[in-house]
């Protein structure tokens, strides 16, 4: 008996290790602060370890871990009683500089634009566009209808396009970008 439970434990640990780089990429992209993101990953590892009996070996470890991390993230926000936002305005002003030609978007600018999205839109586009989850999986992770995820992803894309002034059939001049940035400044 102990033999098979040891085996399960090894499998669990191995699956968890395999999922960690992607989980950490999600956390860092979601939160921007590497320290906070790594703290969150650490909390997630401990939570996941404690409830490993509820995990079915061979099922979707990545989705399971992301769900735990996300719950932890929002419960920490609720506890602290405030939105966790980056307070430096440096990137807002940087974004007001019209970006270069279509298609060449600096990764730093992209991160900053991503940080301007509301949490729910940022997490949706990360789960679907970067973590590689299907819309249905993302919906399950976030506990909302698939249509909600689709519309969040769609809005996130539009907003990113505006902020970055990337490839356009339409004309996105400096004015359009200034408006976008100014609006976000007011909201914040």
């Amino acid at each position, binding site marked *: 008996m102990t033999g098979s*439970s040891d085996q399960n434990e090894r499998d669990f640990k191995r699956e*968890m290790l395999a999922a960690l780089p992607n989980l950490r990429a*999600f956390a860092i992209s979601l939160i921007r602060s590497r320290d906070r993101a790594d703290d969150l990953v650490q909390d997630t*590892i401990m939570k996941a370890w404690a409830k490993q009996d509820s995990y079915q070996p061979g099922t979707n470890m990545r989705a399971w871990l992301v769900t735990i991390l996300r719950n932890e993230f929002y419960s920490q926000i609720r506890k602290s009683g405030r939105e966790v936002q980056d307070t430096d305005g440096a990137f807002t002003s940087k974004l007001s500089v019209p970006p270069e030609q*279509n298609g060449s978007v600096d990764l730093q600018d992209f991160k900053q634009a991503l940080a301007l999205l509301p949490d729910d839109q940022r997490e949706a586009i990360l789960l679907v566009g970067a973590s590689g989850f299907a819309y249905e999986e993302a919906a399950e992770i976030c506990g909302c209808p698939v249509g909600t995820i689709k519309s969040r*992803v769609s809005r996130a*894309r539009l907003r990113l396009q505006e902020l970055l002034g990337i*490839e356009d059939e339409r004309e996105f001049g400096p004015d359009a970008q200034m408006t976008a940035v100014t609006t976000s400044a007011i909201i914040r």
Partner: protein
Amino acid sequence: MSDFQTDDDIAGKADGPVVPASGRTVISRKLRELYDTVQDEGIPDKFLDLLEKLDEAERNAGTSEAR
């Protein structure tokens, strides 16, 4: 990467304006780049150590109480 679904499945389904395919490509590429920069770092030692400790604690507990 086959891991990522195409962006085609959102086109035409979402209400209102949709980012054109060319723009979606740029966004997808940047998202992957963002992840890659983190994933390429591998797993930080502190997480490996943590897992090792959790594993050890469990093994020790396992010897005193039958699981």
